[in-house]
């Protein structure tokens, strides 16, 4: 029997349950011929061992893989018996987004955070009053583009529009993309945040930072941003319940000035925020990011997370 014939028989046997064992046992005329060949052919014997190992690994892994059709069945199952979250269905949100002008959702520039000297915050652990704040740092005004606009408007186009709207405003404008309050946009907001994070992670210049609690809280978080695309995403876990009348604000701190960039969208103890923040391309070394608990509508509060710097 030629090597090629033996190899074919080995391969076909390897795919069948216990096929190699039956072949090696030589208890059929064909198997006996193969066994005889293997006894005197070291390369073919080595190949048998390799195929047997590879096939065993493949068999175990493939057995454990779910049927591709299970995905659709699982989603249908969840749709049928899962809790009704239809009030927040993404499709409905998407429809509502189409009807909303992109530029409407940028919050008023008046929500710009009060400047905070980094040194004072580091020393006291709490924000200082505006009267003691350092002068406005010479950083480029940042604009946060609501993610809801991204579904139909290229971010760079939306950024251009919004930049015009807030022209002349120093500092970072407050983002309106990720906000609590049950507006019905939550699915799109959270999904957009996740998608933005994935997009940022694909950028060659993506910067990753960990957020650590400023006190004894259990909270922790991550920041990822791209200076090139100026997209930034925060994800936070372990947050204390948001007190009534309060919210968690995200901020960037550069040159001793802290600028609020948005409001965390919070579910349970987890929060996320993502948006486009102009000025990221020119961030100086030592810039920091963080989250503060602030009174709703206010611009100062207690930092709970901080990273970088």
């Amino acid at each position, binding site marked *: 029997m030629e*090597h090629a014939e033996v*190899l*074919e028989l080995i*391969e*076909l046997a390897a*795919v*069948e349950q216990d096929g190699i064992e039956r072949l090696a046992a030589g208890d059929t005329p064909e198997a006996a011929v193969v066994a005889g060949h293997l006894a005197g052919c070291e*390369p*073919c014997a*080595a*190949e048998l061992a*390799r*195929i047997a*190992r*590879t096939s065993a*690994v*493949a068999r175990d*892994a*493939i*057995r*454990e*893989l*779910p*049927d591709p059709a*299970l*995905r659709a069945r*699982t*989603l249908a*199952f*969840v749709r049928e018996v*899962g*809790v009704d979250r239809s009030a*927040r*269905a*993404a499709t409905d949100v998407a429809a509502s987004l189409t009807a909303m002008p992109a530029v409407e959702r940028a919050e008023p520039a008046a929500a710009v955070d009060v400047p905070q000297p980094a040194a004072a915050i580091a020393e006291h652990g709490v924000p200082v009053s505006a009267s003691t704040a350092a002068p406005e740092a010479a950083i480029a005004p940042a604009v946060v583009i609501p993610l809801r606009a991204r579904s139909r408007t290229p971010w760079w186009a939306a950024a251009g529009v919004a930049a015009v709207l807030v022209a002349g405003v120093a500092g970072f404008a407050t983002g309106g993309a990720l906000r609590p309050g049950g507006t019905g946009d*939550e*699915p*799109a907001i*959270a*999904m957009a*945040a*996740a998608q933005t*994070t*994935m997009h*940022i*992670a694909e950028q060659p210049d*993506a910067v990753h930072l960990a957020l650590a609690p400023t006190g004894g809280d*259990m909270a*922790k*978080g*991550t920041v*990822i941003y791209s200076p090139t695309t100026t997209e930034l995403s925060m*994800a936070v*876990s372990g947050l204390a319940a948001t007190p009534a009348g309060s919210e968690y604000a995200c901020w960037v701190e550069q040159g001793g000035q802290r600028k609020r960039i948005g409001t965390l*969208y919070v*579910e*349970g103890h*987890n929060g*996320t925020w*993502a948006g486009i923040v102009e000025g990221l391309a020119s961030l100086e070394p030592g810039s920091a990011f963080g989250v503060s608990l602030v009174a709703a509508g206010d611009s100062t509060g207690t930092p709970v997370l901080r990273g970088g710097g």
Partner: protein
Amino acid sequence: MTERLAYDANEVGLVLAVAAGSEDALGALYDRHAPGVHAIAYRMTGDRGIAEEVVQETFLALWNRAEAFDPSVASLGTWLRSIARNRSVDRLRAAGRRVQLVALPGGMGDDDPGMSAIDRLDPDLAVYGGARRDPDPVEAAEAGATRAAIADALASMPDEERTVILLAYQHELSQSEIAERLGWPLGTVKTRTRRALGRLRSMLETDGMRVELGLGGVDGAR
């Protein structure tokens, strides 16, 4: 490490999206975690039908209880696998079969020796008092990488080749049985089987997989 940060952040975002009612996010998380969840269920039950039911119930739990997920306690993958273990045990008990617990990992919370792994899952599916890693993270990661690589290889195969290899490995059919089921000539089945195996071999026998396979660079007959 930095990739891990981004991955975790992304997962938190997807879970939030699920909590907010996004089926797309649920689908994205299914794509990431269903292989691991199914693997646990299949290993515990040895039954593909039950394993599939466990997968469905696990993602139903994610949908219903997304707010309960706390990434500061456990990764999402660990949380889902814990649910799958719990559901698998339920199924085995319901079927009157002996339950063989798959140990949850050690770590915080292991100071209570009277607490079984399953006991650490509260009725709301929140994991508490237990660490959240597999017994051997390296081994688990390698197994996951192998599953992912094989899944990719299967996805890139022509449909005919994927069909025969799945029937052979998942349904344990012989080539003759595959030929009969599909109505294909036996020779065709054999040819497609060999091609499929060849694709899997070329993927698995790359340098990155040699250690796991114990190949170590040994040259074969070819």
